[in-house]
């Protein structure tokens, strides 16, 4: 029941790296001037996210932490990230039952039997941070865009709230902020990753099912993950250039 020495050293090493950069940034965060934190050049980074379905236990920590971190409305209709439960019956593998009660925040009440020949699993979802994102292409005023470091963001000062982008996203990842009446979505915790912190959802994921990765950093574990796993993106035929890579994705997931 103990982890082996090798893995322990690996994990400890990761923590040490995280600690130093996070500590350096934290001064600026606490001083209220986080944008002045040193050591971040947009051209040097290109962010992606990896999700390992085989590790997701559906605890809902990610969805819960995302609302806390980003002040997302507590109503159960607004999520920047959420967890779906898929229940695939053998007779109709292409018509799975999908539910996501309050985005998974309150857990998934027992609903399906485990011994009826069906397959069930959790699928965390969030903005795919597409390299050729349909949502940014339809914005009439340039209020949503792909940043040079690969994050799709919303300029809340500039957004008209016209909802074009909400309609355009093939993954249903955008909503209109019920208070500000402008488009809102996952920022990949842009305010955190620029400081060397990981996203809130990754920080609280207990099984490491979520990892952000910097594709431009040759030492980032993202490369090892992509090399050693068979990864899939959602709706590849839409050619959105999604940078949300799933391992262990079932064909029933849409």
């Amino acid at each position, binding site marked *: 029941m103990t982890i082996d020495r090798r893995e322990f050293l690996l994990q400890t090493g990761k923590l040490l790296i995280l600690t130093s950069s996070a500590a350096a940034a934290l001064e600026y965060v606490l001083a209220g001037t986080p944008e002045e934190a040193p050591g971040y050049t947009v051209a040097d980074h290109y962010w992606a996210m990896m999700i390992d379905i085989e590790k997701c236990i559906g605890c809902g920590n990610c969805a819960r932490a995302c609302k806390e971190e980003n002040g997302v409305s507590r109503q159960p209709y607004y999520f920047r990230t959420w967890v779906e439960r898929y229940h695939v019956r053998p007779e109709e593998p292409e018509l799975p039952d999908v539910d996501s009660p309050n985005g998974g925040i309150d857990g998934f009440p027992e609903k399906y039997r485990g011994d009826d020949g069906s397959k069930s699993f959790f699928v965390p979802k969030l903005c795919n941070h597409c390299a050729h994102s349909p949502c940014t292409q339809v914005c009439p005023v340039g209020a949503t865009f792909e940043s040079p470091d690969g994050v799709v963001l919303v300029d809340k000062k500039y957004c008209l709230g016209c909802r074009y982008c909400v309609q355009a996203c093939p993954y249903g990842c955008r909503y209109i902020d019920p208070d500000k009446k402008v488009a809102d979505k996952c920022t990949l915790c*842009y305010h955190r990753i620029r400081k060397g912190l990981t996203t809130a959802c990754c920080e609280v994921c207990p099984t490491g099912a979520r990892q952000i990765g910097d594709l431009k950093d040759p030492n980032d574990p993202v490369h090892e993950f992509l090399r050693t796993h068979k990864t899939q993106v959602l709706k590849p035929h839409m050619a959105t250039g999604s940078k949300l890579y799933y391992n262990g994705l079932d064909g029933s997931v849409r």
Partner: protein
Amino acid sequence: MKELFKDKEHLVRMVGLFGIGFLLFGLMKIILVPNSFGLYGHYRGDSLAEVAAQPVAYAGRGACIDCHSDIDEARTGSKHAVIGCEACHGPLAAHVAEPEKLKPKLPDGEKICLRCHLANPARPVSFPQITLKDHSTDDPCTSCHPAHHPEIS
């Protein structure tokens, strides 16, 4: 030549109107288009820094361990060693900023434990899961399984 510019008055008027039009267009552009628009692409470059300026709610395990290294050491060798502190204890950037003033509450043991470990057919089979009614006792989880090192040796 003189013939050609006989009725030049309307030409002057036209050039004048065009000039005023261009001036107005330039003025409007300066007023209406933000400075940083186009810096990186068809959007306000400044909005990157604005998004990045959002305050942090989760401090990250690094900040926790800076002070609470004893707890981190207690996790050594446990499966729980890789879990972020705030996964169970909640967002604590405020506590990091003012350690004495804002003290975090202890998490509700059983609820937190079951969030991950209650049996569910959708969970990976290799993940440790319990069915409450089949589990040994009614005692709190942590009476047998210390939260930071839950393995029973």
